[in-house]
């Protein structure tokens, strides 16, 4: 119980509404003004999770979605039911925070090159199950159409290079772990969202990736698989990008500021200053 109330110190109680507002305003801006095919509405959630733990992170996610649904002026839409997904994302972020995933790990030389290369290989390897799995290539069972394979391979290569470059140029191994955390979070989000989208929204989400849902169904997938397929494609990308954005933000905050949060200590242990 003491562990729980430490997660909710006054400082955390102040941080959470700020994070919720960041989620909503950034999510809204990216969606309506910049019109990009990513959400970026989980930055606040992941930030709270990493700094204050799983329960605080989950609460931030859930409240963000519920408040966005209800909020005057910018409310509405269909974001409310996905509060469960947001809760899972926040909870996982808390786990990553406890494990110190976002902590800087300066490295040089061979260790640095090794991690960069392994990261690149792993990212590319993520695509292999899609390419190799007979369930996806057998036209009778249904699966991704051709253009998705090409897109997946291209995205995988670009992502592999980006992640490897991030690790190598910043001389920081943390990028490796952040990428893993992002992908795992994305996969979890996809699995949690698929039934919600299937049951509540006829299997779609209202964003551009519904083209993928359509393509999968045309290939013969059922409602749930099509939802899941769409999720497994877009969520890991979105959540990995978000995780790196959070990592960059955390890097820009002073150690003094971070240390005051429940899990802040785990972020600053090996910092140069």
């Amino acid at each position, binding site marked *: 119980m003491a562990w729980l109330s430490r997660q909710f110190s*006054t400082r955390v109680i102040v941080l959470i509404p700020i994070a919720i507002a960041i989620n909503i305003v950034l999510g809204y801006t990216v969606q309506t003004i910049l019109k990009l095919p990513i959400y970026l509405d989980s930055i606040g959630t992941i930030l709270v999770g990493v700094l204050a733990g799983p329960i605080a992170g989950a609460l931030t996610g859930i409240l963000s979605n519920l408040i966005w649904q209800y909020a005057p002026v910018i409310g509405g839409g269909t974001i409310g039911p996905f509060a469960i997904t947001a809760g899972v994302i926040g909870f996982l972020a808390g786990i990553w925070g406890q494990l110190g995933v976002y902590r800087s790990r300066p490295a040089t030389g061979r260790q640095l090159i090794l991690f960069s290369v392994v990261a690149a290989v792993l990212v590319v390897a993520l695509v292999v199950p899609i390419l190799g799995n007979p369930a996806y290539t057998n036209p009778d069972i249904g699966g991704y159409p051709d253009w998705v394979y090409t897109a997946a391979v291209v995205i995988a290569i670009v992502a592999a290079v980006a992640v490897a470059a991030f690790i190598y140029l910043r001389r920081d191994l943390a990028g490796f772990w952040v990428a893993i955390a992002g992908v795992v979070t994305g996969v979890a989000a996809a699995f949690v969202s698929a039934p919600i989208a299937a049951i509540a929204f006829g299997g779609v989400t209202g964003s551009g990736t519904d083209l993928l849902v359509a393509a999968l169904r045309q290939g013969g997938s059922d409602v749930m698989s099509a939802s899941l397929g769409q999720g497994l494609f877009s969520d890991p990308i979105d959540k990995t990008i978000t995780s790196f954005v959070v990592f960059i933000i955390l890097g820009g905050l002073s*150690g*003094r500021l971070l*240390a*005051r949060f429940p899990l802040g200590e785990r972020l*600053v242990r090996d910092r140069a200053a």
Partner: protein
Amino acid sequence: MTLRLSAATYRYAGARRNALDGVDLELSAGTVLGVVGPNEAGKSTLCLVASGLAPVVVAGRLSGSVTIDGRETTDMRPHELAQRCGILFQNPQAQLSGTAATVFEEIAFGPRNLGLSLSTVIQRIAACLEALGIAALADRDPARLSGGQAQLVALAAILALEPDFLILDEPTSQLDPQGTRLVGEALRRLVGERRTAILVVEHKTALLDRLADRVVVVDEGRIVREGPTADVLDDPMLPRHGVEPPPRVRVRSALTAAGMGTPAATDLLMAELAS
């Protein structure tokens, strides 16, 4: 009723240097103590330490002692400290709760947190509105007030906890001249009517000139000069510590430098400026 710092040394968690170094200070009822000094001198830290919020809320290590009426601040919980020592910062909107629809409810925030009876809460609100002369703002939306008005509301919200000591960290720095005047007058009334002890950090030495009984100069975490207001503000070494003297001192220095510093002329000018 005394707030006392004895050899107070403070270092923030994760910092490499002491923010405060061996500070001795005393604040007693019905007096106003001005604090001046360059940026990053430790003035804000002094405010946090004196109010007890450091190290109780803001993590760090305190050596020496800080006592309020003999009781160590480190022995008190934040809500006990709040009822003895109020603190006000520069940015009014960051201090307002952001959850109150009216100024009345904003001021009620503190007393309600303490669980006081509803009639007590209402009494205190009325008293604070009266003391600061803002009864007309009671039904306004706190988010839509001018800087000066918002700062007065924030001050009222703090006073609602009826602290004996009031610590103000650059309360007028984000205000226009009218707002500054409002806050200055309100503080003067407080000292006169309620015998509140006030510690105020200010760059506007003209304000301190009119308000403070004593002034200390803080530089690099230490007190380098202390004394009655007139003495300290007239001291020529003030600019060396990054403090701009009040206009009357600057005018007199300029007149003296120009060879026109006859006592009669300067007295006349100072009387003009003071009015």
